[in-house]
């Protein structure tokens, strides 16, 4: 009995440590974002006075003058378009890999894996040069295309793992009933595959949402600059003040919705992140 109690205490401590470790930066950003400019340097973890001034300054001036609204729109639109295209292309490829027999299947999987390991910095220079020649520099497609490339391997692997779990016979049954392979795909497999597709979509969205390297290399203005890049260019009220408060407020705005979303769909995300990790 005493042994059991001691174990419970140890587990509680372990859990609390993990929880604090995970939460500290988020709580710290919320705290900083609520401190009025006068007390931002008070160095205390819990604000002594609260103000929403930092949030107001983010949205002041509307879409034209606010340093934050346009990047926020850019981030959302670019990440959503990337997700839709990547999931469409990856679903086609993953269906073929999971369900059909064809030469080149292993090559595609190996190639996708190689691209997952590819260092993005190695493509930044050529893309910078090519995009300027093609007029894609500082545009949405200029970011969506590289995001697509680097999120497809992840999406394909997750989807193949999910598609392999789908009962094969149903598709054959549909084909026996006269459906073409394409119909069998859209009418039977797609509804069954929806949970896996959704999981892959979350992971691709987070990938595009998170990118910084392409965002600062291939954009030059608010026309297409996303939030991570815009944060690096934030300036204070005057050249003497650090933009700590407004960066923190912006960080909270882009972080809290994603965290709620991630926590809500945590089972799916865990399944997606570990898809294929243990299957030989």
């Amino acid at each position, binding site marked *: 009995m005493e042994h059991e109690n001691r174990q419970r205490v140890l587990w509680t401590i*372990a859990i609390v440590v993990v929880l604090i470790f995970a939460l500290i930066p988020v709580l*710290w950003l919320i705290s900083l974002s609520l401190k009025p400019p006068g007390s931002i340097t008070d160095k205390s973890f819990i604000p002594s006075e609260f103000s929403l001034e930092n949030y107001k300054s983010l949205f002041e001036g509307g879409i034209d003058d606010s340093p934050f609204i346009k990047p926020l729109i850019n981030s959302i639109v670019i990440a959503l378009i990337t997700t839709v295209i990547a999931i469409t292309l990856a679903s086609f490829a993953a269906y073929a*890999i999971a369900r059909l027999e064809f030469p080149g299947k292993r090559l595609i999987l190996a190639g996708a894996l190689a691209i997952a390991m590819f260092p993005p*910095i190695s493509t*930044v220079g050529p893309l910078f040069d090519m995009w300027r020649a093609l007029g894609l520099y500082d545009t949405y497609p200029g970011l969506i295309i590289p995001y*697509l490339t680097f999120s497809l391997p992840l999406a394909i692997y997750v989807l193949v793992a999910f598609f392999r779990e789908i009962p094969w016979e149903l598709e054959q049954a549909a084909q026996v009933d006269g459906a073409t392979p394409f119909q069998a795909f859209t009418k039977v497999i797609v509804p069954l595959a929806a949970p896996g597709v959704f999981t892959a979509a979350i992971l691709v969205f987070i990938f595009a949402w998170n990118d910084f390297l392409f965002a600062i290399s291939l954009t030059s203005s608010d026309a297409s600059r996303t939030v991570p890049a815009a944060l690096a260019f934030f300036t204070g009220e005057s050249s003497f003040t650090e933009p700590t408060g407004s960066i923190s407020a912006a960080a909270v705005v882009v*972080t809290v919705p994603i965290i709620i979303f991630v926590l809500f769909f945590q089972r799916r995300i865990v399944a997606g992140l570990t898809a294929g990790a243990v299957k030989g």
Partner: protein
Amino acid sequence: MEANAPANPNPPQAAASSRTRSERKLAWMLCAPAVIAMLLVTAYPIGYAFVLSLQQIDLRFPDESGFVGLDNYVSVLTSELWWEDIFNTVFVMVTSVAIELVLGMAIALVMHRAIFGRGVVRTSVLIPYGIITVVAAFAWQFAFAPDTGFVNGLPLISDEMDWFGGRFSSFAVIIMAEVWKTTPFMALLLLAGLVTIDGQLYEAAKVDGATAWQRFWRITLPLMKPAILVALLFRTLDAFRVFDTIFIMTRGSQDTESVSILGFNQLISRLNLGLGSAVSVLIFLCVFLIAFLFVKGFGTRLDEGRPGG
């Protein structure tokens, strides 16, 4: 559906082979868009980077362009900066991956063996995964900054400590931010390996009198070797590309520059496409070398793995 469906004109054998053929055609058609999209921004640009790296191209001095052979590579490989940045990158990579492996294993064990609170732990480890790397870097930078941060007010830490004023104290903060952000991924991959181990093995070992420590070293670790190696490979390659955290925290000052930052500085800040491309190609070769060493050295079976998040 039709009342007078025509009889199948082909004998079964021919029908099967034509179905195989149409299946192949369909498969290739389904894969083509994804394959093209993946090659578009990798194979072609890396080839183009190689071409650029053989030329002198500085966008600030466009008149002086020309073919220079391997001169750019000679410049990079004989510069002290490149080797210092390689040291920095490998230092951050090895340290953060090593810490992540230990922490990730501990968290995976907690999640696996939890008597209660498994959901809480899983929820909390996903928080770092959902946060933008740049945002996390700012959060830690503000926490350690002497003018705004709470860290210097903690017990055992000097109030005057200027974390970003020195090389290794900067690295300490950079590594801790990297570890915070990516340990969840490591923990989840390790947990996935952990749940495949047959619980009866532990029962049998217990009956034979093995201690918890012995069970961990003799059962858990050996059986998890494939999962550990795959997680290590992906995290090592990912850590080698470290960019966001260093860019936000120090921009490479205090000699904390990584090779990715060096490439970015040459390509985008200085517009020196020739020299920058040589750096890019060399980084690509390093990543290739690391992957090769993993596969050859540890016998990692890559197709058991998954691409990194």
